[in-house]
C-alpha cells in the first residue's frame, strides 16, 4: 500500500483547511470581535485614566488574546470528528502527529495571526507606550502559536464530549500560566527600558518545546477520543 510522502498529505490538509476557513469567513471574525470586546471592557470597568490603562495594558491584551484563542479552539477538531473525516485520517496511515500539527498550524494562521495583526489597535486603546508596542507584537507572535499548540491537546481531549467548551478552558488555562507571566513581564520591561530579551528567549524555548512535543500528545488524545 503505497503512501505518498507525508508532505503532500500535510499540504493537502492545510490547503483544505484554508478552503474551509475561506468558505466560512464570517465565523473567523467571531474570536476577533470577542478579542476587541474584552479589551474595550477594561477601560469601561477600571476607568479611562491613561496612566492606569498603560500600567495594565500588557496583561489585559495578553489575557484577551488567551481568551480569544481558547474560544476558537473548541471547533478545532469538532467538525472533522462529527462528519467522520477524523476517523478516515486516523486510518489513513499518515502520522497522526503530523495531522495534528497541520490542524494546529491552520488554526494559528486563521485565529492566532489575526490577534498579532490586531495588537497595535489594542495597544492604542490601552494607551500602551510606543516602546512597548514592538515587543508586544513580538511576544504575541511567539506566544500565540504556543497557545494553539497546547490548546490543541485540550481540544483533542474534549472533542468527543458534548459540552467540551468549558472543560477545555479549565484544562488549558493552568498550562498557559508560564506563558502569560513571561509575555506580560517582557512587555512591561520593554516599556520601562529594562532588558526583555530573557523573557522572549524563554518564550521561544517554550515555542520550540511545544512545537515538538504537543502534536504527539494531541495525536494520542485524538486516537483516544475516537476509540
Amino acid at each position: 500500500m503505497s503512501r505518498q510522502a507525508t508532505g503532500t498529505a500535510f499540504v493537502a490538509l492545510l490547503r483544505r483547511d484554508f478552503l474551509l476557513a475561506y468558505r466560512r469567513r464570517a465565523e473567523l471574525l467571531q474570536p476577533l470581535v470577542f478579542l476587541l470586546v474584552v479589551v474595550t471592557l477594561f477601560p469601561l470597568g477600571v476607568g479611562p485614566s491613561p496612566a492606569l490603562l498603560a500600567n495594565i495594558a500588557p496583561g489585559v491584551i495578553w489575557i484577551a488574546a488567551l481568551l480569544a484563542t481558547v474560544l476558537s479552539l473548541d471547533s478545532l477538531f469538532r467538525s472533522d470528528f462529527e462528519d467522520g473525516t477524523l476517523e478516515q485520517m486516523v486510518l489513513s496511515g499518515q502520522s497522526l502527529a503530523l495531522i495534528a500539527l497541520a490542524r494546529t498550524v491552520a488554526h494559528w494562521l486563521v485565529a492566532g495571526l489575526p490577534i498579532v495583526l490586531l495588537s497595535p489597535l489594542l495597544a492604542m486603546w490601552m494607551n500602551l507606550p510606543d516602546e512597548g508596542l514592538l515587543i508586544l507584537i513580538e511576544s504575541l507572535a511567539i506566544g500565540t502559536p504556543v497557545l494553539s499548540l497546547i490548546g490543541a491537546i485540550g481540544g483533542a481531549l474534549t472533542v468527543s464530549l458534548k459540552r467540551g467548551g468549558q472543560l477545555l478552558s479549565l484544562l488549558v488555562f493552568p498550562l498557559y500560566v508560564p506563558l502569560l507571566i513571561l509575555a506580560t513581564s517582557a512587555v512591561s520591561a520593554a516599556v520601562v527600558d529594562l532588558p526583555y530579551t530573557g523573557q522572549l528567549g524563554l518564550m521561544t524555548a517554550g515555542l520550540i518545546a511545544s512545537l515538538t512535543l504537543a502534536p504527539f500528545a494531541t495525536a494520542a488524545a485524538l486516537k483516544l477520543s475516537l476509540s
Partner: protein
Amino acid sequence: MNPIYLFFHKTGSPPWFYKYSGKLIPWLWALFLALTIYGLYLGLFVAPADYQQGESVRIMYLHVPTAWMSMMIYGLMAIMGFIALVWRIRIMEVLVISSAPIGAAFTIIALITGSLWGRPTWGTYWVWDARLTSELVLLFLYFGVIALYNAFDEPRKAARAASLMSIVGAINLPIIYFSVEWWNTLHQGSSMGSDGPGIHPSMLLPLLLMATATKFYYGANLLTRARLCLLKQDHRKRWVQDLLSKESN
C-alpha cells in the same frame, strides 16, 4: 509467559488486588496514626517557637508535608498514567483515578494552612505569595483531571483521558512553579522565605515524621478508594458475586 509479565498479569487481576490490598490497609492506617500522634506531639509541644514568627510556625508541620504530598501525588499520577496508557493495565487506571481526589484534598489543606500561617505576619489571609499561587494553579490542574474523568461516560476511556491529562500537566508543573516563583520575586522583591533560612534541628524531626505519616495516609486512602472503584466497576463479574454471597452468610 515470562515471569515479569505473569506478575503484572496476576497483580493486575482485580480479585487478587482487592484481596491483598484489603489486608494491607489496616497496617497503613495504624502507621499513619502512630506517626501523626508522635510527630504532632513533638511539633506542637516540644519543638521551639520560631524567633521571628513565634508560635504560628507550628502550622508548618501540616502545611509543608501536605504541600509536598500535593506535588508528589500529581507526579505519581503522571507515572501511573503513563503505565496505564502504554500497557493498558486496568489497575493503574484505577489508581490514577483514585489518587486525584486525595491529591486535591492535600492541595486544599496546603492552601488553607498556608494562608492561616501567613495571616499573623501578612495581616491578610491571602497574599499572592509564590508558593500559595503555585498551589492554587496545582489545584486547578487537579480539578481539570477530575472534571475530565467525569465528563466521559465510558470509564476505561475516561481513565485514559485523565491519565494523558495528568502526564501533560506533570510536564508543565515544574515550569509553572519556576515561572510563578520568578514572577513573585519580580513583583514583590525577595520572597518572604516563611520557613526561614535554616530549620532548627529539633523542628526537622517532627517535619519528617509528619511527611512520612502523610505518605501512609495516601497509601491507605488510595487503596480504599481503588477497592471501591473495582467493586463499582466489576459488580456484575463473578468474583464480586462470590464475595457478596460469602460475606452475607
